[in-house]
């Protein structure tokens, strides 16, 4: 009997620690458990070893069919979510199957993307569908777009283009150049933070109070990075803890999260997305595992 004792111990350990570590696959029920990381929080590395410490929760996705334009053809069916925190930042690692790496936004060219939605305040949960009007309905959204990891989308979209001298670039620094930029790149001049970032990073932190209300968050801090490997996307999205309105996301808190994912080559963009539909409980564990 003695040789069996180590095996028994391992089996018991499996029950109390991560099921993933034991190779039994992700959990399909219960809360997402965000544990305190032992070392450095991998907030910009979706393939860091630390992610194996986090329980894996698989979430079924469905096409957005509530608000036109809807997604008529389902794309990404499931997303696997893990979460870790270090007491100062919380990070989510999302993984899903996608055989095509759509890492470019262009004319009729949509980018792969993913988003994590969190309640904006304590109390009754807002609508999981982009929140609802009013302070109690506000949600925080952490959004990553593959296309934003490309610092020069023009070169990527048009690799064979000849050298072009644009009027603004050709002009000397000064008011005339500013005017030309205003004239020929109005979105950048308008300070639109929701579009091409040109090296600002692939993450965008936003708030919303219903469909069509997405706007930059008051606190913009976010960390994001995605890697496409062997037909899978691995994306990490992270933000400082306590920065969401009344610290709805903090160690020891039980809250909720919702998710959305876009498959660019399937034409997914904006409201044409796969989403988790309802809130998924999120348990932010104060201590370690």
């Amino acid at each position, binding site marked *: 009997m003695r040789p069996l004792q180590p095996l028994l111990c391992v089996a018991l350990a499996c029950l109390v620690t991560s099921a993933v570590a034991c190779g039994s696959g992700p959990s399909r029920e219960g809360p997402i458990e965000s544990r305190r990381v032992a070392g450095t929080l991998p907030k910009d590395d979706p393939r860091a070893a630390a992610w194996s410490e986090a329980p894996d929760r698989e979430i079924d996705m469905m096409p957005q*069919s509530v*608000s*036109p*334009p*809807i997604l*008529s053809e389902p794309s990404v069916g499931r997303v696997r979510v893990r979460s870790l925190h270090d007491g100062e930042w919380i990070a989510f690692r999302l993984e899903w199957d996608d055989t095509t790496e759509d890492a470019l*936004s*262009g*004319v*009729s*060219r949509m980018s792969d993307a993913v988003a994590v939605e969190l309640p904006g305040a304590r109390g009754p949960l807002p609508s999981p569908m982009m929140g609802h009007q009013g302070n109690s309905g506000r949600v925080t959204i952490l959004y990553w777009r593959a296309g934003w990891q490309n610092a020069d*989308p*023009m070169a990527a*979209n*048009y690799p064979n*283009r000849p050298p*072009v001298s*644009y*009027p*603004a670039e050709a002009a000397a620094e000064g008011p005339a150049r500013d005017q*030309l*930029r205003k*004239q*020929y*790149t*109005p*979105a*950048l*001049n*308008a*300070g*639109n933070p*929701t*579009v*091409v970032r040109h090296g600002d990073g692939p993450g965008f932190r936003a708030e919303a109070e219903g*469909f*069509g209300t*997405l706007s930059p968050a008051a606190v913009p801090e976010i960390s994001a990075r995605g890697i496409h490997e062997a037909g899978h996307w691995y994306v990490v999205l992270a933000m400082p803890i306590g920065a969401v309105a009344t610290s709805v996301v903090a160690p020891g808190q039980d809250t909720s999260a919702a998710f959305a994912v876009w498959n660019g080559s399937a034409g997914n*963009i*904006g*409201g044409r997305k796969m989403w988790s539909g309802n809130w998924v409980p999120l348990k932010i564990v104060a201590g370690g595992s």
Partner: protein
Amino acid sequence: MARVHNWQIGREMEYLHEGARPQRQLAGVFDINKCIACQTCTLACKTTWTSGPGQEYMLWNNVETKPRGFYPLGYDVNILTALGPQRWEGDRYVGKTIFESAPAGERVLGWRPEQLDYAHPNIGEDEILGNVSQGGAFEDTHPQWWMFYLMRTCNHCTYPACLAACSRSSIYKRPEDGIVLVDQSRCRGYQECVKACPYKKVYFNAHTGTSEKCIGCYPKIEAGDASQCFAACIGKLRLQGWISTPEQAREDNPVDYLVHVRKMALPLMPQLGLEPNLYYIPPIHAPEPYLVQMFGPRAPEAVRTYRAAREDPVLKGLLVLLGSTSKIISKFSVQNDTAIAFDDSGTELVRVPVREPVIIRPPTDRLYQIRRENTT
């Protein structure tokens, strides 16, 4: 869906938003018969507004050869095919608009061009339609071959499909002049507007990540000046002004006169339901079925009116005002064989003789003692 009145199709129709017409609506008239496709309008716009990165392929104004030219490729054929048969009963359109035929879960019936659809701005240029069996060169000294140039910009529609399709409410119609704009601080580049606009006059900018479109040269409009493409037209075929609804049409308003009073200038594909605000005097030599499809059931009558314009002092007078000023013409009058244009305040802008004086010079110049040669 709201119910709105679209006078161009002679009935009420479904639209996403309540009908709220602007205080006044900017409009334009083009005399297709005068266009030579020199593209001066295209370049006037291009150099003014779309010379930046990501705007290379954008032609807010373009001139294409019909029926074989398109920009982007097949824009009209595709939406007309998707819409299916379009039937008129007199002036009333009894088919469905692109709003009424939107698929479930969509706001508008539309299609999104691929990048390569924008790769051929000159496709079909100067190509004619017709064949020998219709009366070729071997059979007839006047073969039934035809083509015409179609100049296009944003129509600043009364019921814009781009505006209806935008789930971000990033597109708006200015109440003061009806110009339709994309709010560049709100747009997230979903390209729903690109898909929805049947005229394909909204373009996605890969550099900024937003959609952009003709802004109607609104800084010029605010100053009483005509838009760049109107002011630059060397063929003198464009007229920019303000259009009223039919029941409020004024005979001294040049756009009202051409559109409502004489019904000689017609909208492009009115059956789509957008109530576009650019109007075309149709070409006199294209087949009627084609003209009806492109400009509605009044096209044959408009051609007849145009052919008879030389006998009509007012109409003839108004036509010489086209391209005669770089200002917006709000009022006009024709007196004593002279056409006069006025601005909003009633100030005279320009005075043009309806018939240019003809001076016949003798073949010999007596002062220099030389014979005059016709060098042209």
